[in-house]
């Protein structure tokens, strides 16, 4: 089992992801520079948070044309696991591996705080360690995290239970106040049709130790390890 964390110029959660995988999950992990043209040998690729290419043009738009992305797309098409966190989620939407897009928060502010997420689908490789409806607490840190998609896309996501996590309050209610960025239908993370590509704005890798304020991110990270073990 081997993880790869892609580094773009401007990635800034790459070390957090590496630390969480290497020191908390205790799994083998490498950094993958964005100029690489192969990701062979990796079981799970992580596109980390940050501001790849300074968020120029649109978040994730330039990273989408990094040399490594073709290999990452091939990795996903072979059914291997791929998770995009924050800027990584934005890159996955720009790459069209995930539907929809992430635009400026409704309140225009960069929002950096703890939020609650409700696990809507506990049958994905990324959430199989969670209970359906479980409320997880982890941080967000983004200015462009408002998930948008057209109505047919949203309907398809809902019908196939691919809205994996929604913003909610501590009791698991999706109140207007619990939606930090104006995302449509409280969407915090979605999975692709074949359930091997997951993107979310919150940061599980920054909620991996009690010292960081929450260990709930481990629910997602441990789920990935379980899924990879089951696949071996």
């Amino acid at each position, binding site marked *: 089992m081997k993880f790869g964390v892609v580094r773009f110029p401007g990635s800034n959660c790459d070390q957090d992801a590496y630390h969480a995988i290497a020191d908390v999950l205790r799994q083998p992990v490498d950094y993958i520079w964005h100029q690489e043209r192969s990701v062979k040998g990796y079981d799970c690729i992580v596109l980390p948070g940050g501001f790849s290419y300074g968020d120029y*043009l649109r978040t994730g738009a330039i990273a989408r044309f990094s040399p490594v992305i073709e290999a990452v797309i091939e990795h996903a098409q072979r059914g291997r696991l791929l998770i995009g966190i924050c800027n990584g989620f934005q890159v996955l939407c720009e790459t069209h591996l995930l539907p929809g897009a992430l635009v*400026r928060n409704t309140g225009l502010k960069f929002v950096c705080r703890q939020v609650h997420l409700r696990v809507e689908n506990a049958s994905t490789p990324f959430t199989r360690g969670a209970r359906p409806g479980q409320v997880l607490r982890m941080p967000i840190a983004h200015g462009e995290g408002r998930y*948008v998609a057209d109505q047919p896309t949203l309907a398809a996501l809902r019908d196939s239970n691919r809205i994996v996590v929604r913003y909610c309050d501590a009791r698991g209610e999706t109140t207007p106040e619990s939606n930090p960025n104006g995302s449509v239908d409280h969407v915090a993370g979605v999975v692709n049709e074949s359930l091997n590509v997951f993107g979310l704005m919150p940061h599980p890798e920054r909620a991996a130790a009690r010292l960081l304020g929450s260990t709930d991110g481990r629910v997602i990270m441990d789920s990935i390890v379980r899924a990879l073990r089951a696949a071996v």
Partner: protein
Amino acid sequence: MAQVTVHITLKPTLLDAQGRVVQNALNSLGYAEVGQVRIGKLIAMEVGGDPATVGDRVQEMCDRLLANPVIEDYSIIVDESAEVAL
């Protein structure tokens, strides 16, 4: 070289949070006559090659990179006569 201007805006169905804030600010300044404000991007490019195909090529650039068709609309203005100032 053709001088090409690309205007990119959020689709009308999407809330333009920035535009709404600017509209509120203009209204507060006393410009009560200002209705909806939408803020977009302007990309000015010099484009060489066959002048006959500049528009098509820039459209391809918009579809592939400059705009995200999921959330944005764009329009292209090509001015072949413009002298490009250096």
